[in-house]
């Protein structure tokens, strides 16, 4: 046992003297978490910069409800330019539809809104089989979010008009039903006016957001973006940290120190066991350092200590098992570096190490579960939001199962190689 400790301690000390390895294990995850946190404004949630919108209003206007000339298109443009939305959209007016669309094609704006010439006449048209009109939202397909936001705003604005028309239509219908057919038009105008005065749909319903309240009265915490990112980075770089130490099995084989170890009275299984322990101990220390650093530097509250400890140990087991498996399958240290990196990158991309909390319940969340790190990340998320051991049972057991399987295959292969 003490010999296993001696081997593990030797490797750990060696890692501590190895600057590139330390950079990869400690500096990289912290730096990347900082970078990505900075990407998202360093705040509690994702904040987007305002979408640039070009507006071309070709509306020629029409006689409105009160008889005076009105320009519905200008109203729509006005909605976009309203001060409430200044953090969400930045509007520039263009003289023509072509100019507006061009600004999207040239990349100067993300979205162009083209209001046709017949907009007002369609809106204020009195016939019940009135002509239809459409506001064109011309989007840059690579800016999905800006596009969606703009569509939503324009949709709301149009709802105002459609709602007023619905009021008019209903009032007209009512008048006809009441035998006031001659006053149908007037009723319609009054209803429309009343609808608009009342604030329409916007004033009718409001949707507010809050965090979930659990039955026990405990409310869940809001998790900062940085915490989620650092958890993902930590696990990803633990893979590399484990790889570095596991790789020394190959390095030592080549350098002669491993065969020399085999000539000592220490049994082979003790020697190999020492190597396996080295890997586990090193990544555990790595994780602890990162967790503490996350707390100190980014003020991340990782959650309940027992759950955090369990997640950490299981993550270390997964990283060690995986790295040993990779090493047991390759032949040269160069392959260990290249193939290991490939495997870890793919696992991280599939498991969501780089993308934070996936849309819950969606396909991606299920795909994450194909990887041990995906389960771990979902566990970290739950614990950061206040969960305890009971909440993450599966998130601990499934990755542990992976780890055991990886380890078993690795041990068999090493036994065969160093028989």
């Amino acid at each position, binding site marked *: 046992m003490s010999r296993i400790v001696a081997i593990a301690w030797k490797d750990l000390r060696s890692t501590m003297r190895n600057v590139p390895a330390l950079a990869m294990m400690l500096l990289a995850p912290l730096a990347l978490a900082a970078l990505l946190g900075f990407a998202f404004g360093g705040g509690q949630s994702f904040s987007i910069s305002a979408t640039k919108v070009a507006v071309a209003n070709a509306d020629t206007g029409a006689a409105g409800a009160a008889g005076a000339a009105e320009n519905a298109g200008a109203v729509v443009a006005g909605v976009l330019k309203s001060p409430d939305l200044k953090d969400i959209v930045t509007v520039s007016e263009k003289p023509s539809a072509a100019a507006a669309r061009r600004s999207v094609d040239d990349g100067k704006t993300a979205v162009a809104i083209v209001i046709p010439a017949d907009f007002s006449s*369609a*809106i204020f048209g009195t016939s019940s089989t009135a*002509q239809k009109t459409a506001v064109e*939202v011309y989007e840059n*397909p690579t800016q999905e*979010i800006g596009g969606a936001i703009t569509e939503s705003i324009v949709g709301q604005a149009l709802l105002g008009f459609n709602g007023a028309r619905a009021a008019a239509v209903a009032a007209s219908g009512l008048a006809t039903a009441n035998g006031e057919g001659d006053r149908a038009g007037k009723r319609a105008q009054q209803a429309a006016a009343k609808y608009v005065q009342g604030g329409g*749909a916007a004033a009718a319903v409001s949707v507010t957001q809050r965090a979930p309240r659990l039955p026990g009265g405990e409310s869940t915490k809001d998790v900062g973006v940085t915490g989620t990112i650092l958890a993902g980075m930590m696990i990803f770089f633990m893979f590399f940290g484990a790889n570095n130490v596991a790789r020394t099995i190959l390095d030592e084989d080549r350098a002669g120190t491993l065969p020399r170890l085999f000539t000592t009275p220490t049994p082979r299984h003790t020697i190999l066991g020492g190597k396996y322990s080295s890997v586990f101990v090193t990544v555990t220390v790595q994780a602890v350092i990162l967790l503490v650093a996350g707390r100190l530097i980014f003020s991340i509250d990782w959650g309940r200590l027992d759950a955090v400890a369990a997640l950490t140990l299981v993550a270390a087991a997964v990283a060690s098992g995986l790295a040993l498996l990779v090493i047991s399958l390759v032949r040269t240290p160069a392959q260990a*570096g290249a193939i290991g990196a490939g495997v870890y990158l793919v696992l991280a991309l599939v498991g969501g190490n780089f993308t934070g909390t996936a849309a819950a319940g969606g396909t991606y969340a299920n795909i994450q579960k194909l990887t041990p790190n995906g389960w771990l990340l979902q566990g970290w998320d739950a614990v950061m*939001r206040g969960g305890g051991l009971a909440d993450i049972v599966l998130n601990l057991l499934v990755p542990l199962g992976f780890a055991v399987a990886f380890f078993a295959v690795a041990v068999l292969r090493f036994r065969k190689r160093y028989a």
Partner: protein
Amino acid sequence: MKRVWILASKDFLETRRDRLALLFTVVMPLAFTAFFGLMFGGGSDRLPLAIFSADSGAPATQLVSALAKSGVVKTETMTKDDAEKAVDDDKVAAALEIPAGFSADLAAGRPAQLTLVSTAGSSGAQTVQTEVTALAGELAAGERASQAAAAVAGVPPGSDPAAGEQALKDAALLMARPLAAQSLAHPVATVRVIEAGTAAGQIPTGFVLSSPGMLVNFILFSLLTAGIALIQERRNFTLRRLMTTRVRRWELIAGKAVGMFVLTFVQQIILIGAGQLLFGVDYLRDPAALLLMMVALSLVASTLGLLLAAVLTSEQAMVATTVIVSMSVAALSGAWFPLEITGSAFQFVGHLLPTSWILEGLRGIIVRGWNVPDVLPAFGVALVWSAALFAIAVWRFRLSD
């Protein structure tokens, strides 16, 4: 110049010999692309939404059924406790709380409340909120329209004078609602969405947009293999020995760069081919523009790899630095998430990098109908960066430890 080719082909030969590593450089990204393409190729799926309602009025029921028919969310009704827990456990993207007074408020013309329960940072919640607001808005619009119509309606003939004002109003409302709903169901003004560069109505799937990002990611990562080989060669002293021949220093370095260029270019061909043939990502829409972008990407990748190998001394340092650099560059270039959701400082730095220009170029080709003139700026930026990286590499190249 001929010597450059000889050197490059020697490297290529050596790389081909390490079959296993080569396999991984090619197979991994391919498998990953296939995997993701299959998962996401079919368009985005509906976000799960839990609904708990304390209101049994008609508007509430209408709202629930409207949501059930939505193509954006997939609804499930449950109890309040279950819903809160489902949100907390990440089983649903959000939960909608319809309070007891909802229908009454709407009917009375008072502002009605809806609450969306979600965890902060959940991207699905934003989308759900937009959809709920839209559908609830339509519902409210119908109700308000009906109320407005009822308010201005006259007294129907033959109605009982003893009936109160309220009863009259209720009767009017009852008649107005279907009329208003009918009008709203066929609105006069609609939104027509056109994605620039495609025919109206064609919306690219998430996978199509993410494919170029993945490409850039993997190419950057593959610098690892090439760089490690170079460092090993330095260790073997064969590099120094080459310098004792008549090979000039810049020829030696250029030979290395050519090797890395070819390697990354072949990788690109494979990945782009797979994307095009298997998943319908239309890279080949404009082959000339595509070629420009591929050349640009390989130029940047190979000169970057060269610089790293020139300056770093050990394989471990190479692995560490490549991982950090390639990940940072990928993130800053918009390969992982669209730059539009990041802060302005981040975007500023990102737009300095050649890879973000190349990514934009590739996406432009695929979905925005870009042609050669549109991608020329990106190509130019890549050329400038590559030249600079190459120059620094030549200057700092260590031929021996």
